[in-house]
């Protein structure tokens, strides 16, 4: 009897240790209504809204100050609101957010940072924001063309930000040591860039011209379109779409990268680099070029490069290479990959959206982007002068500067000149992609096909495979599920 009990206990413990589903319910209902009624916008009792976002932790002093400032500013504007910030466990945000939502306690305002996996469609918990946006003033003014397109395709996530894409940069002091750099910037053909890369290594003293964090995506931002990879799906002569990474253009591009790798122009350890070691290599002068998101990230690169190497080390954004086409990585408009959502179960949807609308306005953007007067900035002669504390303040609601009209003191601009330049260059040299949301029943096949591509690309660049293996890769890619996705693409892309 004892043996049987022990055996049963062992089975239970082994099974449960390996199983990590948590105690999901089989039935649920709307989350309890937080706060008061939607009608109470200007009443004496504030409307409580629950809010969850990445890097927005209730114990963070800056978050507390930002929340207080928002509440006071909105109250002065006739909207009496109380924001209750929900804690998120440390770890991968999308994973932890999923667990919060899974519990059934759905916040009024939810920030998704990728991985929302069509929550609005599969779980039906997100509000269609179209009617709210139509009635808005500030948000409407802050939407860029890509935002508008994405909202049309998936009107559940709102993200007022420039499309996030990698823009390559070089340090000015290193650029100056490579005479061909100026020519490459003026006429950025692939050949000129190749010459520039060689000079960076031979004359500017860097160990390698370019480094990336683990993948070739950042190189693609610079060279992809020049080889003809103008969209994810490329229309062939027969009128059918093929996945760009299985085409002749990809083969030529990978061959070029393999040449860079073989000649030591591409970091020999790029596959094992992480974002921090990549950036360190750049600041230390080991890598001549790295890529980062245009705008705020380039701003950070610029500030850190100067603080470590002096004013001469300011960063210079580089244009994408010119060839069969020219442009940074095409912009996916199938949906917002991240952004703010209003819960369908919220009893204060209007007020929740009012917070987003307020934050997109002039006063809201100053609180969000710049901080609190007397701390992150001071006012002098009607101009905003940033203090040292500004470095620790970052936007949580609106990253876009499309509708940002704060009166900045010229001595402390919101974004440095290279960051502004990167935004301008991206705007003028970006194109719309034709990628689409992969349906759930093809998700595992898409994952498998992508894994085949990534491995082949890494092996071809590092010389373990050659262009002669490309046809076999295409066959493997199709067999892994790529064919089914291609069939779907040909039905989906109009």
């Amino acid at each position, binding site marked *: 009897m004892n043996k049987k009990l022990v055996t049963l206990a062992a089975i239970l413990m082994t099974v*449960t240790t390996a*199983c990590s589903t948590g105690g999901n319910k089989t039935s649920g209902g709307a989350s309890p209504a937080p706060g008061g009624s939607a009608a109470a916008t200007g009443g004496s009792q504030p409307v409580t809204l629950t809010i969850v976002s990445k890097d927005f932790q209730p114990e963070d002093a800056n978050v507390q100050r930002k929340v207080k400032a928002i509440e006071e500013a909105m109250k002065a504007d006739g909207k009496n609101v109380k924001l209750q910030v929900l804690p998120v466990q440390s770890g991968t945000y999308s994973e932890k957010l999923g667990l919060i939502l899974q519990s059934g306690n759905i916040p009024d305002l939810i920030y998704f940072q990728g991985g929302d*996996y069509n929550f609005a469609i599969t779980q039906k918990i997100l509000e269609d924001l179209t009617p709210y946006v139509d009635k808005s003033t500030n948000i409407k003014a802050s939407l860029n063309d890509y935002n508008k397109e994405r909202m049309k395709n998936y009107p559940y996530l709102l993200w007022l930000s420039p499309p996030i894409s990698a823009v390559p940069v070089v340090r000015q002091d290193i650029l100056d040591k490579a005479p061909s750099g100026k020519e490459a910037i003026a006429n950025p053909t692939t050949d000129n860039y190749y010459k520039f890369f060689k000079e960076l290594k031979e004359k500017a003293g860097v160990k390698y011209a370019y480094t990336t964090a683990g993948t070739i995506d950042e190189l693609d931002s610079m060279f992809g379109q020049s080889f003809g990879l103008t969209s994810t799906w490329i229309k062939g002569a027969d009128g059918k779409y093929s996945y760009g990474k299985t085409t002749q253009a990809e083969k030529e591009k990978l061959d070029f990268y393999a040449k860079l790798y073989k000649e030591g122009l591409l970091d020999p350890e790029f596959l094992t680099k992480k974002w921090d070691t990549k950036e360190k290599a750049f600041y230390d002068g080991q890598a001549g070029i790295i890529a980062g998101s245009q705008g705020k990230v380039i701003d950070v690169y610029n500030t850190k490069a100067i603080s470590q190497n002096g004013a001469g080390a300011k960063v210079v954004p580089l244009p994408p290479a010119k060839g069969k086409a020219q442009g940074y990585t095409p912009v996916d408009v199938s949906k917002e990959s991240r952004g703010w959502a209003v819960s369908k179960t919220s009893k204060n949807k209007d007020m929740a959206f009012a917070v987003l609308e307020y934050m997109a306005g002039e006063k809201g953007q100053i609180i969000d982007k710049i901080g609190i007067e007397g701390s992150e900035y001071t006012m002098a002669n009607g101009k905003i002068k940033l203090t040292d504390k500004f470095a620790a303040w970052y936007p949580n609601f609106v990253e876009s500067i499309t509708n940002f009209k704060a009166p900045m003191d010229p001595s402390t601009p919101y974004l440095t000149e290279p960051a502004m330049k990167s935004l301008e260059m991206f705007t003028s040299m970006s194109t719309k992609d034709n990628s689409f949301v992969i349906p759930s029943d093809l998700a595992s096949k898409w994952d498998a096909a992508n894994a085949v591509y990534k491995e082949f690309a890494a092996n071809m660049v590092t010389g373990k495979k050659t262009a002669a293996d490309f046809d076999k890769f295409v066959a493997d890619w199709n*067999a892994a599920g790529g064919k089914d996705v291609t069939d779907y693409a040909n039905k989906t892309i109009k």
Partner: protein
Amino acid sequence: MKAVRTTAPAQIRGSSRWKQVWSDKVLYVMLVPAIAYFAIFHVWPIYGMKLAFYDYRILGDHEYVGLKYFRELFSTPIFSNIIKNTLIISAMKLIIIFPIPILFALMLNEFRNGVFRKMVQVVAYLPHFLSWVVIAGIWFEFLSPSTGAVNEGLKAIGLPPHDFLTDKESIRWVLVASEAWRSAGWDSIIFFAAIMGINPSLYEAAYVDGANRWHIMTRIILPHLYIPMVTIFTLNVGFIMNAGLDQILNFTNDSVNSSIDVIDTYVYRIGLINSQYSFATAANLFKSVIGVILVLSTHFISKKLTSKGAW
């Protein structure tokens, strides 16, 4: 009369058992947190396993879909490769790493200098407390083809450098070696404690009979380690489908992913990051069933061959 004879001793036994429990009440109270932990975090989640058979809904009733997610899992083009990787990596870890803590404990026991022994123990236990992010960083530096100590050594003896981290042939060995480095010291504690528990009179008797250190080790110490060895091996077999999520996430790169992509990383990618909880549950349930089968098999084989098992 018969009934009186059979029930009376049982009553006495029951009464003395409760007396025994009462006399050990402090120990039982100490057991309560552990029982609560397992009940809340390990037994209760069994209820959630049924999600593998339902379409998960945050709001409203889950829709019963039968074996849909199992079919999806088994029809995934890379599923067989993932299972293969999981079994190969786990088996390598199980077979290669398992003897290391035992050998380490035996080695520690041979040290006569207590201070030196403690120092070695501390150094050996230390990696256990490091996260895989930190360990991966250390090993990346250690194995770097341009500046790493291993490749510097290879170059010093005239051999070409080798990029162990992007080579499909080497990466599994890197996983095994880094796991051994992290866990061998810590895992040796249980064996070292078992050695410390051996009655010293056995050693004295053996020395009187003319035994040397080798005889002591093979005839006295190793037989005493037999039961912890079998227990730990059996439990390790149960975890054979857990090839190491954190470790692999930190060591993976595009070039070697197909060699080290295991069930856990796949479930993490498809199930958790993409919020497909039912799919993730189905994969985990499959993994758990295999684990249970392996534990029971190992236990019964061990019982059959040696008359000793894990319980």
